[in-house]
């Protein structure tokens, strides 16, 4: 073997090994020492301090909030056990140094592709104990794959690829928005600002653009902190990309994120493996960007559901007692939330690529004689809202979906329409606010609601 040339496959693997080895080494030493100073108690010996100067100390891992349980058949599901979560071979240096930024790509039990953003240390994915997180302990906290609360997800296409673009304006350098509040958010919070975490240090805020371009995604071009365009590659396969920059006057940290199916903002262009280039363009009139194509998207085969195939009686009922009172942090007591249950029989099964959805309307009563003028009066309450039942439902199952309705100012009629959508619901998955086309009517129901006077409400709440 020694006399022959090296095997190309081993060279390919060698390139990966080299990339990982040198990516870890690129972390600035100065920043690491700063971390060590935060993390090492003064009582430690010199030997201990010397070790800490080259190692980022570990803290407790991130956990889901207490009581929050993610289920395999609900919402976006949970990561699949086999190859369910992979730290993509993407690293982006932070402007202040420290562990590089990275993304983790998840495949879930409900056929969604998700992407998480965080910091990467020794190949492990996690967040940093700073910016109000973990008591600013300066340690690296691993982010287990089953903590999916902060994921951005989209349903997979028929080929198993998700298409998703996130534009995060003002993400703390810790890697998660949990520990502090972006100053712009605090300024607009008014009296609620006392309930919010303290302001993030301005120099720790980042604008982060990341997502999944699909199998044809090759690279993205962005304007760097030096004002010049830079291009970074996307990963083969799912087309994961990542860009981290400091906020500027032109792109301030707002403390918000914009999800879309393809990049809309923050980037200059997207390059595809078939040679296409999509330049991110803004429509001067609307201020909206022209979306890039979902290159390589394979739609799910269309399913035809005849009208009447899902028809079922829909009924509404109200729980006898309102939801108990809650004391808010500002000291005010809110109470009297009503519980309404929608009930129907699902004649067709639904999964992550089909769904049952309800539309709610509050309508005034005819006798109230509301017109365009007195509609604004207290007794003429109207309003529309909608929701999606975000779980797997089997054919023939009786569905009970309970909603909570806030206090009423009048005695409106609640109208509910349930529809079945046998289509890929698009970005965000079913129930994340995106209304697909092609709903088939299941049924409608109405329920007259009555405003509960304060005295009666108190009696019901505190019998």
């Amino acid at each position, binding site marked *: *073997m020694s006399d022959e040339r*090296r095997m190309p496959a081993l060279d390919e*693997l060698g390139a990966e090994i*080299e990339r990982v080895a040198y990516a870890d080494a690129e972390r600035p030493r100065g920043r690491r020492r700063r971390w060590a100073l935060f993390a090492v108690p003064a009582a430690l010996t010199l030997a201990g301090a010397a070790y800490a100067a080259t190692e980022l100390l570990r803290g407790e891992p991130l956990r889901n909030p207490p009581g929050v349980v993610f289920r395999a058949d609900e919402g976006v599901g949970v990561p699949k056990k086999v190859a369910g979560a992979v*730290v993509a071979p993407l690293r982006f240096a932070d402007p202040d140094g420290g562990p590089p930024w990275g993304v983790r790509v998840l495949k879930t039990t409900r056929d969604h592709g998700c992407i998480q953003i965080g910091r990467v240390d020794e190949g492990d*994915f996690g967040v940093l104990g700073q910016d109000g997180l973990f008591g600013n302990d300066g340690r690296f906290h691993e982010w287990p794959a089953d903590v999916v609360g902060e994921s951005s997800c989209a349903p997979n296409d028929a080929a198993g690829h998700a298409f998703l673009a996130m534009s995060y304006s003002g993400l703390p350098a810790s890697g998660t928005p949990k520990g502090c509040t972006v100053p712009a958010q605090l300024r607009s919070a008014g009296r609620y600002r006392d309930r919010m975490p303290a302001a993030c240090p301005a120099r720790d805020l980042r604008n982060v653009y990341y997502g999944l371009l699909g199998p044809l995604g090759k690279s993205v071009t962005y304007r760097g902190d030096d004002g010049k365009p830079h291009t970074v590659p996307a990963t083969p396969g799912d087309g994961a990309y990542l860009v981290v920059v400091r906020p500027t006057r032109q792109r301030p940290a707002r403390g918000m994120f914009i999800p879309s199916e393809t990049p809309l903002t923050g980037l200059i262009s997207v390059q595809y493996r078939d040679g296409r280039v999509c330049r991110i363009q803004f429509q001067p009139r609307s201020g909206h960007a022209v979306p890039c194509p979902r290159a390589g998207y394979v739609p799910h085969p269309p399913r035809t559901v005849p009208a009447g195939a899902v028809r079922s009686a829909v009924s509404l009922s109200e729980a006898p007692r309102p939801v108990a009172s809650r004391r808010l942090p500002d000291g005010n007591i809110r109470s009297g939330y009503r519980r309404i249950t929608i009930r129907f029989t699902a004649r067709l099964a639904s999964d992550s690529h089909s769904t049952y959805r309800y539309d709610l309307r509050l309508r005034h009563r005819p006798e109230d004689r509301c017109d365009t003028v007195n509609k604004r009066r207290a007794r003429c309450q109207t309003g529309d809202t909608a929701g999606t039942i975000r779980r797997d439902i089997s054919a023939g199952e009786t569905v009970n979906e309970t909603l909570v309705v806030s206090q009423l100012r009048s005695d409106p009629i609640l109208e509910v329409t349930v529809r079945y959508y046998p289509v890929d619901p698009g970005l965000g998955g079913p129930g994340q606010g995106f209304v697909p086309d092609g709903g088939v009517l299941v049924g409608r129901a109405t329920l007259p609601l009555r405003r509960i006077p304060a005295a009666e409400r108190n009696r019901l709440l505190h019998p």
Partner: protein
Amino acid sequence: MTTYDPDTQRQLAVPVREPAGFVALYRRESEAVLAFCARRVLDPETAMDLTAETFAQAYRGRRGFRGTTEPEAKAWLLTIARRQIASFLKRGSMDRRATQRLGIQTPTLTPDQAEEIERRVGLPQLRVVLGEELARLSVDQRDALRLRVVEERSYEEVARSLGISEATARARVSRGLRALGVALGHTTIEEAGL
């Protein structure tokens, strides 16, 4: 591939905990590790996966390596590889945790590349030797191994052909391979010309 004389005990020019040292270790020993794996699992694709996982685990544990010589580094790598192979044969599935955590993409072999590995590692000759050793195994294990190794059937096909469950097929193949491993235990890396 680089061979070594155990008596020479060449010192590592750069410690493996340093990027340059680890990359040099890969360049020096990757073919040996691949051959080591391929001759034990008899499948180039699986051997490449095992090689990737071996180096990924070695990278993650590089700070724990206390050796200072090239032979020590090689022995350390082969110990990791041996553990990977044992785990693979026992469970019938690949452990890819380290490669996944590091985000290492394992190359997918083309038919030509797979054939090249087979040829350079000497798998055809090894299969002949194994054929002779197979005759000494129990009928159950021999049939399972013949279908899986010699005829290169999938576990599903092995199970269907023998009228047993896939788990049982995997167990028979695994036990048979272990028995062969004992029988061929005298074939060390050096003797095989690796």
